[in-house]
């Protein structure tokens, strides 16, 4: 079968386009990754801690389990309950790599007096606010 020169050129051009497309497909990629530490907190969990002046450290541990961290405060103490969520998004475009990591936490601090009775409770539930984003997007 004979082929004229313009037909041959067209085939070469198509092959070139296909190879560029192939290079793009092979060189590019993206990923989303989520990692969690411990289980999320809900307002109901905070309510289970009980009242200041009435609940003991033993009762708090029985209701919420072992704390993430125990801090000595002179003769008093504080327990930290922590849940963490991290979301990472990455994009690779031939020569450029973009990566964004957002880590947010649920934190509940329970403060005790020297007799291990709850005196104060503070909570921040932000773990659900972790976002997948590109690095040029500012988080609120």
């Amino acid at each position, binding site marked *: 079968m004979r082929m004229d020169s313009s037909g041959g050129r067209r085939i070469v051009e198509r092959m070139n386009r296909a190879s560029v497309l192939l290079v793009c497909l092979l060189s590019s990629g993206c990923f989303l990754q989520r990692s969690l530490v411990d289980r999320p907190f809900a307002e109901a969990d905070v309510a289970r801690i009980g009242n200041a002046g009435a609940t003991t450290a033993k009762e708090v541990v029985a209701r919420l389990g072992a704390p993430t961290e125990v801090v000595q405060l002179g003769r008093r103490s504080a327990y*930290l309950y922590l849940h963490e969520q991290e979301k990472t998004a990455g994009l690779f475009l*031939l020569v*450029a790599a973009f*990566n964004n*990591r957002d880590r947010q936490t649920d934190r509940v*601090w329970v403060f005790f007096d020297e007799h291990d009775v709850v005196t104060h*409770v503070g909570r921040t539930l932000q773990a659900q606010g972790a976002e997948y984003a590109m690095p040029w997007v500012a988080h609120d």
Partner: protein
Amino acid sequence: MRAPALLALLALSSSCVSASWNRATWQRPAARDVVAGLPRSGIGLQECLDLLGAPTLVFEHRVHGLTLAYAWVQDRRFGGTVSVPLGDRESASFSYATARAGAYALVLWLDESWVLEDWREGRLGSLIGEEPPRPATLEEIELTRR
């Protein structure tokens, strides 16, 4: 046509030219209006917790007092590398990177009755040191008994 295309492909291949843009965020700073309305001193621990939520760090302040740190990290890094083969065994490369990194915090100090003494905002390291202080020993606690 083939030579420029080959050169462009070489330049675009990640072993010759690469760029990166990374961002890492940990926690969010306290809302500006809340910080603006925070009294300089005199309010109790529960009021601080109700206003600002749970801190990220808690440790002793002068044995019986409290330090609460509301820390956040906003890390941004840009980088680029250019590598040019000069011969069979040599190549030259140039890298550039810029970073705006660091942990910031709103730090509150409460006295031994857990009443706010003072607060400041800034770089976490300059406010509380690179490492949180060690807990007081039993002797220190007894010596400074409330």
